[in-house]
C-alpha cells in the first residue's frame, strides 16, 4: 500500500481510539461512573454532586495529562534521536529527567507543597540542559560536536542522579523517603487541575515546535556538513530542538515524575511502521505516545486499589510489545 495512505489510515484509527479510550477512562476507576452520565456532564449539563467533581477535577485533568505526557515524551524522544543521529537517544539524554528529579526531591525534602515541588522540578530540569550547554560551550567552543553534547549530558545527568541519591540518603526513611521514591517511579495520581494547567502550555508548545520542525529533523540526522549544505542553520535549529524537547520533558517530569521507556519505545514503533522519515515518525509518535500513556495510566489506577507506579507498567507492557513488534517487522525499519 502507498506509504502516505497507510500513514493516514493509521493516524485516523489511532485518533479515534484515543477519543474512545479517553471517554472510557473517564468512566473507569475505583469509583465507576456510567458512560451516559459522563457524556451528559461533558455535553449537556453539569451537575453539582461528587460525580461532577470527580470528572472535572480529577479524571479530566488526569486523562489530559496522560495524553500530553505520552505525546510529549514520544515526540521529544524522536526529536533527540534525529538530533543526535542516534537511535538510542531518549528525552533524558541531556539529563533533564535527573535534573527535574533532583528539583522535586529537594522540594519534597524541604516540605514544599505540590506547587513548589512542581516548580522546583521544572526549574532544575531546564537548569540541567542549560548546564549541558555551558559545559559544551566551555569545552567545545561555539559549534561543539553532538558527541560533546551527549557526553556533557551524561556528566550532568550523573551529577544530578548522585544529588538525588544524596537527598534520599538524608531524607527521613519513615515519611519523606517513600514519597520521594514513589515520585521517582512516576505517577499521575498527583495531577490536579492546577498542575495540569501549569504544565500543559509548555508541553503543547514544545511538542508543537518539534512537529513544525519535523522535515528539518531529517536533515539534522545526516552528517553536519550535509545538513549545512542543505541550508540548515545548524546552531539555530539544534537550539530550537533541544529547547523544545527539554521544555516538554521537564514539564512532564515535574507533574508526573520519571516515566521511562515511552521516549524510546514509541518512536521506534513508529519507525517500524512508517520508516525513519520524521514527517511520519513525529506525528505518529505524538498519537501513539498519547494512546499508550493513557492506556497505561488507566490500567495503573484500575487493576488494584493501590495504584501501580507508571514506570513499572511502561516497562512491563512496553518490553513485550516491543519484542513482538521486532519479531513481526524483522527489526528497526531501515
Amino acid at each position, binding site marked *: 500500500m502507498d506509504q502516505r495512505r497507510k500513514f493516514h489510515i493509521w493516524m485516523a484509527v489511532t485518533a479515534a481510539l484515543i477519543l474512545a479510550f479517553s471517554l472510557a477512562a473517564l468512566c473507569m476507576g475505583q469509583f465507576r461512573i456510567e458512560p451516559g452520565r459522563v457524556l451528559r456532564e461533558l455535553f449537556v449539563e453539569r451537575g453539582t454532586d461528587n460525580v461532577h467533581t470527580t470528572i472535572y477535577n480529577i479524571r479530566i485533568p488526569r486523562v489530559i495529562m496522560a495524553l500530553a505526557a505520552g505525546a510529549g515524551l514520544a515526540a521529544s524522544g524522536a526529536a533527540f534521536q534525529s538530533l543526535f543521529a542516534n537511535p538510542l537517544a531518549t528525552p533524558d539524554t541531556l539529563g533533564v529527567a535527573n535534573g527535574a528529579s533532583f528539583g522535586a526531591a529537594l522540594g519534597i525534602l524541604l516540605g514544599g507543597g505540590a506547587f513548589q515541588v512542581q516548580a522546583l522540578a521544572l526549574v532544575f530540569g531546564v537548569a540541567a540542559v542549560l548546564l549541558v550547554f555551558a559545559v559544551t560551550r566551555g569545552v567545545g567552543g561555539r559549534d561543539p560536536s553532538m558527541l560533546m553534547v551527549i557526553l556533557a549530558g551524561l556528566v550532568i545527568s550523573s551529577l544530578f542522579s548522585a544529588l538525588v541519591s544524596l537527598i534520599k540518603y538524608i531524607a527521613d526513611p519513615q515519611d519523606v523517603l517513600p514519597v520521594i521514591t514513589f515520585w521517582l517511579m512516576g505517577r499521575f495520581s498527583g495531577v490536579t487541575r492546577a498542575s495540569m494547567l501549569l504544565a500543559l502550555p509548555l508541553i503543547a508548545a514544545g511538542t508543537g515546535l518539534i512537529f513544525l520542525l519535523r*522535515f528539518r529533523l531529517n536533515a539534522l540526522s545526516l552528517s553536519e*556538513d550535509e545538513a549545512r549544505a*542543505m*541550508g*540548515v542553520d545548524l546552531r539555530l535549529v539544534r537550539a530550537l530542538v533541544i529547547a523544545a524537547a527539554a521544555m516538554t520533558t521537564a514539564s512532564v517530569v515535574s507533574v508526573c515524575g520519571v516515566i521511562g521507556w515511552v521516549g524510546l519505545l514509541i518512536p521506534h514503533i513508529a519507525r517500524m511502521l512508517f*520508516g525513519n522519515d520524521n514527517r511520519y515518525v513525529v506525528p505518529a509518535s505524538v498519537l501513539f505516545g498519547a494512546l499508550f500513556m493513557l492506556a497505561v495510566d488507566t490500567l495503573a489506577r484500575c487493576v488494584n486499589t493501590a495504584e501501580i507506579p507508571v514506570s513499572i507498567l511502561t516497562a512491563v507492557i512496553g518490553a513485550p510489545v516491543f519484542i513482538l513488534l521486532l519479531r513481526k517487522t524483522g527489526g528497526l525499519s531501515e
Partner: protein
Amino acid sequence: MSIEVRAGTFAYGKNEPILRDVSFSAETGETVAILGPNGVGKTTLIKCLLGFLPWERGSTVIDGRELRDFRGRELWQRVAYVPQARKPAFSYLAEDMVLLGRSPYLGDFSMPGARDREIAAEAMELAGISRLRGRSCAHLSGGELQLVLIARALAAEPEYLVLDEPESGLDFRNQLVVLDLIARLCRDRRLTVILNTHYPDHALRVSDKALLLFGNGMHLFGRTEHILTEEHMRALFGVDIAVRRERLNGKEYAAVLPLEILEKGENGPWTRP
C-alpha cells in the same frame, strides 16, 4: 559565472598550514579535478571552499561575491555538495533522501510540496536511478547510494556541484557510471563541477582543469593536459608513471600506467631506489 578560491590558507589549530595560498577557479561548464596523495588536504580544501571550515586567509568567491556575504539558504540554491557516500544513522527511502535536496528552498517550518517532489523525481531521472525510488538507502550498494546522493544534490537545481571523492570505493563499472554522469551534467546542463579524486585516469577523462596538491602548501593549477603530466604526477605521488594515449572508435583515451615506487632523497627529488 565562476567559483574561485583566492589565496586560501588553512591550518588545523596551531599546526603548520596544510593549505597555503591556494588559488584556483572553475568557469561555467568546466570540471576541475583536485588530486594529491592521502592526507594532503583535498577534503579540507573542499570544506574550506564551501565554508564548513573557515579560511585563515584568503576567500572563496562565487559569481563575484564573497562566500561570507551569502545569507542563509541562498548559497545552497546555487552550490550543491556531495559527500563521500556513507550509510547514515537513520536511513530514508531513496526518494525521500533525494527530496531532502530541496531543503535550501524550504523554511525551517515548511514541508516539501508537490512541485518539490516533481523536481526530486526529475533529479533521479537525470541520475538514472528512478528505479531506486522506493528502496531504502540502507539496502543500496555503494554505487547506488553515491548516485542517490548526486541526485539529491541535483534536486537543489544548483549551478555548481562539489563532490568529495565521488567514485572511490565503487566497482569498475560504477566508477564509469558516476564519471559519465558528471561529464554529461557539465556538457548538457552547463553545470560547473569540482571534485576530489585519487585517480589521475579519472581526472584525465573528465576534467578541464586540474589542481595538484603536493603538501607543505605547494600546489599547481591549470589546464589538465598541461598540469597532469608524467613529470608532475611523479612528483605528486612518488610513483614512476607513464601516460599512454590510445585512439579507439574515433575517441582518444588516456591511461595512466604506474611503473614503480620512487624513493625520496634528502630534500631532493623522487628517484628510483
